[in-house]
């Protein structure tokens, strides 16, 4: 299989890597770059556990994305939302404070999906949050505390910006 060379920026660091064309972004993050914070949940784009943020704007399922198509892109994972000094992103803070985390396996994807929403819509209604989070499955929380955490995060971001 002919290998591809790509340049992938992950959490600010640029990686020049050579990969097989059939590797997904999830495979590359976990196996090549040793960044296990992005989770394998189903491998078929049904659960959202592998969600990452692309170019600080768009959220995608990394399990459905061939890594070769991400040449030159900037990827943010859950670990990359935290500053080097350890400050959590307001969405992460809100998940922590609001007890929106149980087993935690969906959490990195859920946090990134929520970041994606707040970038598009800084003040979403409860219905908008619920609809946006469809596609990211959580089996522990009943979604209640996740939804209120996203609302709280919106307020935190507005305060920080205001």
């Amino acid at each position: 299989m002919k290998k591809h060379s790509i340049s992938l920026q992950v959490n600010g660091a640029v990686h020049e890597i050579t990969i097989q064309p059939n590797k997904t972004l999830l495979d590359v993050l976990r196996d090549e770059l040793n960044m296990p914070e992005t989770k394998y949940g189903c491998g078929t784009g049904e659960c959202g556990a592998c969600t990452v943020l692309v170019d600080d704007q768009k959220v995608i399922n990394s399990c459905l994305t061939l890594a070769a198509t991400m040449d030159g892109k900037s990827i943010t994972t859950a670990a990359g939302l935290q500053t080097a000094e350890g400050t959590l992103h307001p969405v992460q803070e809100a998940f922590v404070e609001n007890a929106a985390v149980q087993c935690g396996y969906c959490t990195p994807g859920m946090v990134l999906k929520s970041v994606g929403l707040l970038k598009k819509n800084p003040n979403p209604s409860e219905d908008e949050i619920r609809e946006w989070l469809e596609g990211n499955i959580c089996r522990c929380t009943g979604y209640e505390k996740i939804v209120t955490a996203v609302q709280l995060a919106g307020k935190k971001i507005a305060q920080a910006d205001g």
Partner: protein
Amino acid sequence: MTEFRTVGKSEIKIDVKAKVTGRAVYAADINLPGTLHAKIVRCYEHAHAKVKSLDLSEAAKIPGVVKVFAPEDLTTKFYNQSVIDIMVSEDMRGMLGDIEDQKILTDHVKHYGDGIAAIVATTEEAAERAAERIKVEYEPLPVYLNATESSQDGAVQFTPQKPRNMAFELPEPAFPNNTLGWGDADEGFKEADIIVEDNFYTSKQKQAQMEPNSYIALYDDDGLLSCWTSTQMPKSVQPKIAKLFNLPMSRVRIIQTVVGGGFGARLGMVLEPHICALAMALPGHPIKVQSPREEDWLTSPSRHPGDYWMKMGFKKDGTPVACDAKFVNYKGGYYLDGSGVAFTTGGWVSGLYKFGALRYKGESYFTNQPVCGAYRGYGNPQTNFVLEQLVDRACHELKIDPVEWRKKWHKDVGDDGWCAGVPYASCALDEVLDEGAKAIDWKAKREKYAQQTGVKRRGVGVAVMVHTSGAMPMLLEHTVCTVRLNEDATAVVAFACSDMGQGSHTTLRQIAAETLGFPLEDVSLSVGDSNDAGYDIGAHASRTLYVGGGAVMAACKDALKQLLERAATMLEANPDDLEIEDKQIFVKGSPDRKVAASEICSGGVYPFLNPQTGAPDTIPGQILGYSSFNPMHNSPPFGACFVELEVDTETGEIKLIEMVNGHDIGRAINPAVVEGQLEGGAQQGLGMALTEELYFSTDGKVLNNTFTDYKMLGPSDMPKITNVIIENPDPHGPFGAKSVGEAGLVAPVGATANAIYNAIGIQITDLPITPEKILKALNEKHAA
């Protein structure tokens, strides 16, 4: 009420920062140097077949393949992946008819996805490719998808140990006529003015925890077998693995990785035998397996589906004179805890209402379906669906308000609990029902919804439940805890209790800090490695906070007692006259007579000898608190759930509007954790009622083992949720606490069914209650 420092506060959960940044380490995240990758090859051609021939030669030639394994290449010893056998005495085990009928790889495929071969390769890809080259010839056998089919004359026997494929029935002579209960049900029914009776089907629901199964095992040069697993029960898996491979327990180490959800699916073993067998076959190499998501529905145990018949008799005034019930569950291909749900279901029927007489029969039959085992509630959700619908049918006929009937006839303090001989010690169900009814505006809505005529009809329903805190006296309950006080008067608490995400490590730490009188940040936990802590059965039966909490409390009391005794010597006071506040120990009423806990702890660790006297200046010895704890009760929690929904009578669709989940918690150690359990339980209970079921083709193939086709409720499907948490401290629980883990799932099942009944006047008796079933029932009603 006593002022608590940390108990009752929604403290931030212990591991939550590691989880929001993705740094929490799950089994799949571990990559040991030199790891080889395993694949279990499964049968997807048949649900019941004999393997006539298995040719692995082509698979072995694939580059990267290290070794291929047929059944006889690994241990062919029989085992049972469940752990019930180690929770009961040998006599009880015999009585329960527990058997070992599983092999790591099989030549008799008993369900779709049964494992027939294994491959170990340098990469997952090579293992996958090799799996495609395996040549198998099967001899198909008849497929049985329910108890009626598998128990018929001439059916192929799943195991010679269980004639007629009956895995279990309540055993004589402990249960005369294979029944449990009280009184004479036949006589009871003679007194009845009305009888309600029906046949129900309860579904094969899957836990569908978010972390797919992944394991690593290494049989190292020193002969130590290590297994990294997200099991709920590391200390029960350890002796099971030791027994299967004839190893002393000291040569088996189970390292529990962060558990990405359990709900029963990881109770006992799943693929631990497989990965350990492969590791032992290839010593020195870490072997890893990542089970694909679609295999999870096929390999880890689900809820028991089955046929549930029930009959109840009532007098005109509502007196429940008798109940007769029979639950026939479909076990799947292997025995596992074949006795468990068939038995406990009788407990759940026994525990709730003051029937004049009760007779329950429980039976399990093998079927060609993936195995069943523990799933949050263990027979209770099935019972809730049946019992609570029939109670509402009777209330409707008798024109009695369903809330009032339940308040009048539920069992209460002093009544025999779900297990005969263990009477309830606390019960706040009346208050839960009253507060819940108020929160949902029960009376007004029931009146309003009685008058509907439109296409969309609303309904509001109620169901109640009783559950348990641990499984005593039926099963062993035991947790060991040690508390080490460091020289700076901070504490390290060690136990093997599992946190599956429910927050038990957080709440157990709160119990430790509260008992010691130490600030929360001065208490840390030592958890995760089976060889670092004493015994704990594992997380099941909603026991961890209750039994684990009891153990932590006892060990902390032991440490505190030692600390106070030393303080008493130093202060020349009586230990009973001492108090601890902010880690200062002082004589009650004389705050100046005090000594810092750190001075005592430091003196214990550093007992320097005085050069003049040759004796230590301080009281020597590091303080170690210890407990080996067996609870004296099972402090059942009670709950009431109210559901409001809307049925579209043209499409059969159901929209959930609102739910009130009321719970008699005893004491909420961490209210946010309690809410999380109720809300998460609701998602699974509502899903069981409305959407969740594993479907089979007539030849036994599983049709919906993907998240798209196995429909669980998403964020926009969920109703508005209100939690009603009633604190009525239980005399036995730690700080009065009772369980919540499994309970949140139970009553939403019955409450949803009853809300549908209220909306359209029809009871659906088959789970899940899909739009198709509603439309069919509406059409039949219309035709009649």
